[in-house]
């Protein structure tokens, strides 16, 4: 009984390994590319990994997608394993400064590593991502045009987080270029609860301080949560018919719904996650073809979302 179990155990383990092994050692001449991420369970990541895989299929690459289920040290381990395997390229989706031990190993082996919305790092050939400056330009010009370049604007910003900080730099520049636009308040909400509740409280205080209809023309938020909070405050105060224009950035599902319903929340910007995946695949194929990538960041265009296309994609 026991002996049979032991033998059975060994047999099962071995056959399972042989089966999966055989399936994996299909083609040899293909380029081998590894995609390594701790975040595959997150929706955004899934979009770009799927788009990358689709593009890689056309290019006939052997793609190995590795998810470490949130474990960042395991990302280093898997990079080391891929260096041992001598893959042709690695695509990374994690903050590169946390895995530099692995990036160092790849650099020493001469294996190029491309960031897919990862962050910039000297050890990455390039990072493929959305342009935060461009996204903020889309919404701040939308606001300026909608209020005909005059009136009080409330800004929700977050300077401590670099990807969000760059957005407010551009909005400041755009609003500064209109002499009749006045920045009424520049609010940094407490984001520990997700950002909506505190933004709502801050907006309620600002509404109370500016009771005259028309005294606030627009709310520009550096991301969607404060925009949603401001919307709730305006609706709760019964001032949703004053034509206060609200914009956000990121196009999360809640923001899309708010825009679709035709209220004060009028615009946001959607990142093209699929585009990031397919562009990363293009960059890898250029590297494999021997081209030198000069840009440290490759930007993928984003799209303004308004009532015209809120539920379109």
């Amino acid at each position, binding site marked *: *009984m*026991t*002996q049979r*179990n*032991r*033998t*059975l*155990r*060994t047999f*099962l*383990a*071995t056959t*399972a*390994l*042989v089966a*999966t*092994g055989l399936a*994996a*050692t299909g083609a040899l001449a293909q380029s081998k590319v590894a995609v390594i991420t701790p975040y*595959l369970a997150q929706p955004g990541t899934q979009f770009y990994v799927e788009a990358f895989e689709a593009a890689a299929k056309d290019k006939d690459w*052997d793609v*190995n*997608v*590795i*998810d*470490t*289920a*949130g*474990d*960042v*040290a*395991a990302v*280093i*381990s*898997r990079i*080391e*394993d*891929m260096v*041992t*395997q*001598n893959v042709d390229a690695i695509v990374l989706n994690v*903050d590169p*400064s*946390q*895995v*530099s*031990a692995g990036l*160092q190993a790849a650099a020493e082996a001469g294996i190029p590593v491309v960031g897919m919305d990862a962050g910039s790092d000297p050890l990455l050939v390039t990072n493929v991502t959305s342009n935060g400056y461009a996204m903020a330009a889309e919404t701040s010009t939308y606001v300026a045009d909608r209020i005909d370049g005059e009136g009080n604007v409330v800004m929700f910003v977050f300077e401590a987080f670099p990807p969000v900080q760059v957005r407010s730099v551009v909005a400041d520049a755009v609003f500064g270029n209109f002499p009749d636009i006045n920045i009424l308040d520049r609010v940094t909400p407490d984001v*520990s609860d997700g950002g909506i509740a505190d933004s709502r409280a801050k907006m309620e205080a600002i509404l109370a301080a500016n009771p005259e209809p028309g005294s606030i023309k627009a709310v520009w938020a550096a991301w969607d949560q404060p925009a949603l909070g401001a919307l709730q405050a305006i609706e709760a105060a019964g001032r949703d018919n004053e034509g206060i224009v609200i914009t956000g950035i990121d196009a999360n599902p809640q923001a899309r719904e708010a825009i679709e319903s035709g209220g004060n929340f009028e615009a946001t910007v959607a990142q093209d996650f699929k585009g990031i995946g397919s562009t990363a695949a293009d960059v890898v194929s250029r590297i494999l073809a021997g081209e030198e990538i000069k840009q440290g960041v490759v930007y993928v265009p984003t799209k303004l979302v308004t009532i015209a296309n809120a539920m379109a994609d």
Partner: protein
Amino acid sequence: MLTLLRRYGTLIGFAAILLFFWISLPDTFMTARNWLNISQQMSMLIVVAAGMTIVMVMGDFDLSVGSMASLAGIVVAVMFTFDLPIWAAVSLALMVGLAGGAINGVLISVIGILPFVATLATLTMLSGLAFVVSGGKTISGRVIPEGFSGFARGGLSLGEWNGVAIALPNLTLVAIVIVALVWVLLEQTTFGRRLYAIGGNIEAAHLSGVAVRKLKLIAFALTGSTAALAGIMYASRVASANPTQGSSLMLNAIAGVFLGSTFSEHGEPRILGTILGVLILGILDNGLTQLSVDSYVRQILVGGIIILAVSTSSLTKHLRA
């Protein structure tokens, strides 16, 4: 022949796994470089599992090791933001580990709460503490001194092998030292023999004059310290700390000890068995990744192998009883 197979079944399985990877990956698996990589990748888990072995010898558990590791990493990184020198930050984090472990010990041995319940509660508390201390953020970048993150990247040069410079990684060295210490403690001292006595029959141990409470308290304090050390090693390896980064260590450490206990004659945890158990997990991760096996399939295989190994071992026990 039958006894041999019964006694060495897991070892034979281990050899079969090695052989399989060696054949499937002839150029890259059985190389010094790859084995040094595996040793480095598994070093943190080995340290946690070595500490876990100390309490599992008594038939107890410590579920809080993962959150303790996260908290220790956070403590080190937060101390760096106050410009504390590396030795001071590391010592402080180790003391947090010792204290946390001792609290587990008090809850279990003095107050008498079941280890599962007590350490489940401290797991939650330590994890919350890690979030509070860090403000929920990942601490990384320039605040982490080069000397701290450089440690995990460095190693003892071993010369060249097939024209490639190889080094014994510092993290591996730390793991070897801890394993040696735990081996001496469990196998060569009265303290260790008494822990095994408690694990064998706690009543008998108590009646024969073993200071069960004191020993349990010390054992849990040691487990907490090794968990903190592993957390510090983790923070060094990723040059950063976030409040959840150690969470995968706990289940893997327990799995490693269980797998390891199937190597021993009576199914009791032994430190060398634990090392083999952890190595099985590490080799599966390394080899299956190299074979491009899907990450999720990998998890299923690893879980399946644990069930097979431990269930055969427990069936052996039943047959003997």
